[in-house]
C-alpha cells in the first residue's frame, strides 16, 4: 500500500478491494489493488488508457472475476457472484442503450429482468424519467435523441432499481465540452442528493478533480496514489503522479547535508536549493531526493537583479485563461514551466530567447515520497 487511506468522514467502507490481481493470460491488467470506498463516497479512478481502471470497475460490476484477492461489497465477498445477481449498475462509455426499445422500455429494463409487474415498472420508471427530465421523450426511440438526452436515459436506466452504488465508465467522453460541464454538475448533484456511492472511471483530470471526493490514480495496473483532489494536487506521491498532473517542475537532487536546524542543503543538476525539514524529516548525506515545485510557485527575475537562481531562456508561452504558462529552457536542456498572470509577465517584457532567472521559496518545494530513498 502506497499511502494510509484517509477515511475521514467516511466511517464505513462500502467496497473493499483486498490485494486484487487481474491477469489476462500473461498480461497483468490490475496489480495488487488494495483500497476501500466509503458508503456514499464519490470516488474517481483516473489514468490513461490501458492502466487498468476499467478492469477495476468491471471487476466491481461482476463482469470480470479477479485472478487473486477478494472484493467485498457491502460486507459480502462477491468473488464469483454473477453480475446479474449483484445490484451494481453501470453507465457505459458507449451508453449501451437498447436501440430496439423505446426510452421508457430502456428505463424499465432492469425492473423487467427482476420480474417487477407492469404497473409498478411504469410508475418507478416514470419517477426516474421525471427526475432526469426526459419524461417528454418516454415514447421515443433511442436514435431520435441527442447526446445529452441519451446520457440522461442511461442514468435513469441504471438508477431505476435504486441501487446503493453506481458505476460510471467514462460516461461523458462522447459529449462536447459545453455539455460535459453541464452533465458533470448533474452527476455531482445527483450523487449528493441520492447519497449513494459513485465510482467514476475517467482519463480526464478535470472531471475527476471537479466531482470526486477522492481520486485513485492508476498506471500500468498499479495504484499510484489515492487521496482527495487537494492532497493529490498538493502532495503528489511519486514522479508518475506529478507528471500526470502536468503542472509541476520535477528536480532530481542529492542531499549535501543539514542546512541550519530546519532544512537540508540539496544539490541538483544546475543548482542548489534548501528543502525544509517538514518535507524531509530524516536524510543522510548523499541520499537522492526528488522534489517538485509547481509552476505557479515559480518566481521570475531579470538577469542582473542580483537574485540567485537558475538561468534559463524563454522557449515559448501558452495562454491559460487569466494566466500564461511560460516554458523556459535551462543551459542544461531542462524544461521549466512557470505560470504567471499576464500583468506580471508584461512587466518583465519577455519574448522568445529572453534570459531570465528562475527561483522559488524553499517552503514551496514538495518532496515526492515515492521517489526518495
Amino acid at each position, binding site marked *: 500500500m502506497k499511502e494510509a487511506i484517509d477515511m475521514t468522514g467516511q466511517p464505513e467502507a462500502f467496497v473493499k478491494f483486498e490485494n486484487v490481481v487481474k491477469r489476462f493470460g500473461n498480461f497483468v491488467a490490475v496489480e495488487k489493488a488494495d483500497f476501500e470506498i466509503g458508503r456514499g463516497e464519490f470516488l474517481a479512478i483516473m489514468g490513461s488508457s490501458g492502466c487498468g481502471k476499467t478492469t477495476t470497475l468491471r471487476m466491481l460490476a461482476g463482469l470480470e472475476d479477479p485472478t487473486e484477492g477478494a472484493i467485498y461489497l457491502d460486507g459480502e465477498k462477491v468473488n464469483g457472484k454473477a453480475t*446479474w445477481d449483484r445490484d451494481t449498475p*453501470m453507465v457505459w462509455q458507449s451508453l449501451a442503450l*437498447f436501440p*430496439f*426499445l423505446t426510452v421508457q422500455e430502456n428505463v424499465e*429494463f*432492469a425492473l*423487467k*429482468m427482476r420480474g417487477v409487474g407492469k404497473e409498478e415498472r411504469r410508475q418507478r420508471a416514470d419517477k426516474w424519467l421525471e427526475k432526469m427530465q426526459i419524461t417528454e421523450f418516454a415514447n421515443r426511440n433511442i436514435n431520435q435523441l441527442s447526446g445529452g438526452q441519451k446520457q440522461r436515459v442511461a442514468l435513469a436506466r441504471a438508477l431505476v432499481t435504486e441501487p446503493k452504488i453506481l458505476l460510471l465508465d467514462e460516461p461523458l467522453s462522447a459529449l462536447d465540452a459545453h455539455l460535459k460541464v453541464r452533465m458533470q454538475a448533474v452527476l455531482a448533484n445527483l450523487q449528493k442528493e441520492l447519497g449513494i456511492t459513485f465510482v467514476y472511471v475517467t482519463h480526464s483530470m478535470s472531471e475527476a478533480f471537479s466531482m470526486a471526493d477522492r481520486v485513485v490514480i492508476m498506471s500500468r495496473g498499479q495504484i499510484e496514489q489515492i487521496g482527495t483532489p487537494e492532497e493529490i494536487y498538493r502532495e503528489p506521491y511519486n514522479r508518475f503522479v506529478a507528471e500526470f498532473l502536468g503542472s509541476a517542475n520535477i528536480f532530481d537532487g542529492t542531499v549535501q547535508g543539514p542546512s541550519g536546524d530546519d532544512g537540508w542543503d540539496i544539490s541538483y543538476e544546475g543548482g542548489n536549493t534548501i528543502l525544509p525539514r517538514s518535507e524531509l524529516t530524516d536524510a543522510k548525506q548523499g541520499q537522492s531526493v526528488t522534489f517538485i515545485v509547481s509552476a505557479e510557485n515559480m518566481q521570475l527575475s531579470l538577469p542582473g537583479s542580483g537574485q540567485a537562481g537558475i538561468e534559463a531562456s524563454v522557449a515559448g508561452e501558452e495562454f491559460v485563461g487569466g494566466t500564461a504558462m511560460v516554458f523556459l529552457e535551462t543551459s542544461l536542456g531542462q524544461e521549466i514551466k512557470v505560470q504567471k498572470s499576464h500583468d506580471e509577465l508584461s512587466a518583465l517584457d519577455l519574448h522568445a530567447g529572453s534570459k531570465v532567472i528562475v527561483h522559488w521559496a524553499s517552503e514551496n518545494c514538495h518532496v515526492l515520497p515515492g521517489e526518495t530513498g
Partner: protein
Amino acid sequence: MGNENRIINILLKVHIALCLLFIFAPIAGSFVFSLNSDRFPSLPLGEFSTEWYRLIWEDPLVWSGFANTLIVGLTVAVIATALGFGGAYTDFRYNFFGKSFYLALALLPPTIPVVIMGLAMLAFLSRVNLSGTTISVIIAHGVMCSPFAMAIIRLRLSQMDPDLEAASWNMGGNQWQTLRHVIIPFTKPAIFAALFITMAVSFDEFAVAWFVSGLNETLPVKILGFLQGQVSPRINAIGSLAFISSMTLIILAQLLLRNPEEPKS
C-alpha cells in the same frame, strides 16, 4: 456533378442493362410463352391464353409436388434458421480453441458440389432408413440452408455493440433473459430475412432433392419429370409461378435487411 465521367457512366449503365437482359430475358420469355396459346414456343406469338395455368391448376401431380415443396420449405426455414442462429451466436459470444475450424465447417455445405452432396445424403439416409421420405428432403435441405441463415444472422450480430449484452447482464438479466430480451430482438430483422431466404433456397433446390426425395418429389423434381416426358408450355407456367414466389421471398428478405435501425412502426 462535375467529377463524373460521361463515358464511364454510359458504359456502366450499358453493362448493367446487358447483365439484367441476360439474366431476365429467358425468364421473361418463359413468362410470355406461358400465356401463349401455341403449343411450341415460337414467334410470331399465338393468342393470349391462360390455358396452361388452368392445366397445372387441375393437375394433381403439380399439387402434390407443391404441397411437398411447401412443407419442406417451411420446415427447413425454421430448422435452418434456428441452427444458423445457434452457429452465429456461438461465433459472436465465445472464443475457443479451433473456432476458425468450427466456422469453416459450419459454412462448408454450400461449397460442396450438389451431386456429391446428393449422393452422400442418399447413401447416408438410406443407411438410416430415411431415404425417400419427406423428412429426408428436410434433413438434406436443412444442412444446405443453415449456412445461409448463419451468414445473415452473423452479419447482423457483428453490427451489435458488444456492451449491449453485458449491459443486460449488469441490469439483472441472466443469460437466458438476455438472449430473449436483447439478442433476439436485436437480430429479429435478420432472423426473418433468414427464414425467407432459406425457404427460397429450399424451394429452388433441385439436385439434392432429386436424389433423396423418392416418391415425395418437390416441385422442381416434378418439373424435370415433365420435361423428360414431353415438352409442354405448362412448364413455362409452373416456372413463372416458382419464379414469382422465390422473388417475393428474396425481396421480403432484402427489405428486412435494409435499414434495420429505422424506427419501428
